Structures are given as C-alpha cells and as structure tokens.
C-alpha cells in the first residue's frame, strides 16, 4: 500500500483515478492544481505523486521543478493528455530528464496504472 497524491484539475477524472488507486490498495489524497499539491506534499508526505501537466495556477512542470529545488525526491508519474509535446520547449522526454519516473497517457486502464506505479516505486 502506498500513500499517493493525485494532482488533476478535472474533478471527474480525479475522482476516477482516486477510486482506481484505492481499488489497487493505495491510500489517496487529491489536489486540483500545482499550488495546492505543494502544500499537500509538505503536510501529507506522499510516497508517490501522480500529476497532470496542464494545470491551472501552477502547472505540473513548475511543481516538479519546485519539488526538486526543495530537495523532495518523491517519485512522480506524469499524466499526458495525448500530445507528445506539452509546450514548445517541454516534451515528454524532457519530463523524464527532470526526474519523472513514468508517463501515463490518457486514457489509460488499470493495467497501465499498475505498471506505471510499479516502475515509479522500483527500488524504493
């Protein structure tokens, strides 16, 4: 069982992902944007973060960079909406270079989620 922080601005998708993770036996805390997520990281100390990249207020990229700058090495799974490039100067390969352990492409199923979690937590 792992304590997971889910960062996703779409309420329905967030609820679905939280439910899926709970069925997999994990405990879940949720945030709607990067700003809220950073506060929850300090408070809840999750062992895994699953985050969308395109988020309001503070996006996933800034959040991941701030976590790294703060010395927090919680493994991160990035969720992609399907585009290979997230912005002109940031693509999925860049995310992996930034320390993102795994990438999930929407829509994904339970098997995909299980594999991504397993890769992200390998060696921990």
């Amino acid at each position, binding site marked *: 069982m792992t304590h997971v922080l889910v960062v996703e601005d779409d309420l329905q*998708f967030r609820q679905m992902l939280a439910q899926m993770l709970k069925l997999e036996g994990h405990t879940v805390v949720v945030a709607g944007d990067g700003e809220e997520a950073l506060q929850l990281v300090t408070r809840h100390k999750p062992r895994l973060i699953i985050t969308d990249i395109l988020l309001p207020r503070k996006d996933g990229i800034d959040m991941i960079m701030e976590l790294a700058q703060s010395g927090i090495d919680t493994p991160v799974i990035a969720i992609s*909406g399907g585009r290979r*490039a997230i912005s002109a100067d940031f693509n999925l390969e860049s995310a992996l270079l930034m320390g993102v352990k795994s990438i999930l492409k929407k*829509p994904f199923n339970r098997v995909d989620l299980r594999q991504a979690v397993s890769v992200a937590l390998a060696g921990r």
Partner: protein
Amino acid sequence: MCSIPENAPPSHRRASCVQVERQTAAHDGEGDACRSCLNKLDAHYTDLLNQRLGQSQALEVLGALSAGVAHDFNTLLGTIVGHAEMGLDELPEHSPCRQNLQQILAASLRARELIARILLFSAPHQCRRITVDTVPVIQETLSLLNSLLGPGLRLNFSSDLEYAPVSAETGHIQQIVMNLCINAADATDHKGTVEIRLDLTTLGDTPEERKPGVCLSVSDKGSGIHPDLQERIFDPFFTTKDLGMGSGLGLSVVYDTVTQIGGHIELSSTPGDGSTFRIYLPLAVEKENSLKTSTAVDRNLIDFAGEGQ
C-alpha cells in the same frame, strides 16, 4: 513544336519544355508555340501551389484546434474508460451489463485512436527524423496489412532496390503505406491486387534543384476518383466513404506526413479504372560506405551524380 508526352510527370514536362524552348529560341514560329506552352505550365503550377497552400493552411488550423481540444477530450475518455473498467471488474461474470461496458470500452478505444490521428496535425515541427531504410519498413507494414485487409485482396510489392534510405521516422513510412493501402482496399471492395512499387527517381524541376529520391507508388484498379473530387481528396475530414466507414483523415495524414518529411504527392486517377498515388521522397544522403550495402542503389546514385554535372 513542343511535344511532351501526356503522361510525363510535371517535373519532366517542365524540364522538357524548357529544353525545347532553348533549342528553338533561334527559330521563329516554334519558339512562340513553346512559350505559350510554358505559360500554360506556369499557370498550372500557380494553381497547384495555391492548392497546396490552401491544404497547408487548413491543416495548420486543424493542428491548432486539435492541440487545444485533445487534452480535454482524452481526459473525458480517461474518465469513461476508468469507470467502465472498474464497473467490469465488479460485475459478476454472467451479468448482461458486461457487454454494455465492453462496448463502451471498445468505442472509447476507437475514439482514442481517432484523437491520436488528429494529433498528428498538431505538432509537425516535433518529428525527430532518423535515416530509415524504407524497403523493410514497407515490407513489414504490408505483411501486417495483408492479414488485416482480408483474403480477397493481394498486396503486391515490387522493387529493384535493396536499400532506400530516407530521412523520416519509421512511423511516417508506416502511416503512408497503411493509409494508401487501406484507401486502395476500400476502392476495390477488398478484392483484386494492389500494386506497390518503390523506385529510384530524380526530384527537382531544374538541374540545380535535382537530387536523388524515391518514388513509392500505390496503384489499384478500383472505382477511381472523379476529377471534381481530386482537388479535395487531401482535405481533412473529406471522405467519399459511407458514414462510419472512414474518418476522412487517411489521405490528409498522408499529405501532411509526406510534406513534413520534404516530399510531395501526386495522384493520377480515372473514374472506373483505378488510381495511382505516387509519393516522392528525397533520398537520405549518407556516408559513402553505408550505401555500399546495396549495389543497386550505388549504381543509381552514381548515375544521379553524373546527371547533375
């Protein structure tokens, strides 16, 4: 007079005409006829360029739109797929609702594929090209398609080339071959033979622009395409197929992919007598020793070098 075979490719027609114009410039009468021919060709080229510009602009708009909506659309699909799957996991094995959920999942996966195809338009600058040998990629793609397109259709590949490198992604070549063959299969009702050929050719209209290339042609003896429709055949979402049988994206994906990798596409079609799509791609220039793996290509490259001088 300027005599150019009707079936000569435009680049050859133009080159021949320029040559004749030069030869006859000193002779009154014939030069006028040729100049008139050149003017017609220039008008033809202007129309062609305008058409291509229109297609590029349409694809650009589609790209911007698709990039904007794809993320939201995939998020919605993610919610649908996730809940359908969790529902399936909870239902008893013989529940009649299982089939409904399975249909939801199947439809969602089709929607995901459609978005993935639309997304091909959204980021043309992001492709990372490598040198791809087109010969095995075409062979492997056709082998996969053979099992998918039904036993009544034969995909016949022929080429003298053992090695034909182009600068592209493997997926680009697969996309081109798959879409053209699926199109040919639909045009022939999945019966008969589709001829696929790969040949060396020369690209460029003038001696200065000349460079070696490959021509991939896909020919069918199907229903053909009416001249009025040929102008629109590469437009996104344009389809002549029955509702639900085609997205209208196959040929526009081919057009976009070919343009991205520096090639161009030509169509010759006669209604009732079939169609031939020709894809012209520049040959990747590689180190000399890597090309020596194929004597056939070596020989042709030497010929090309000779022609350009």
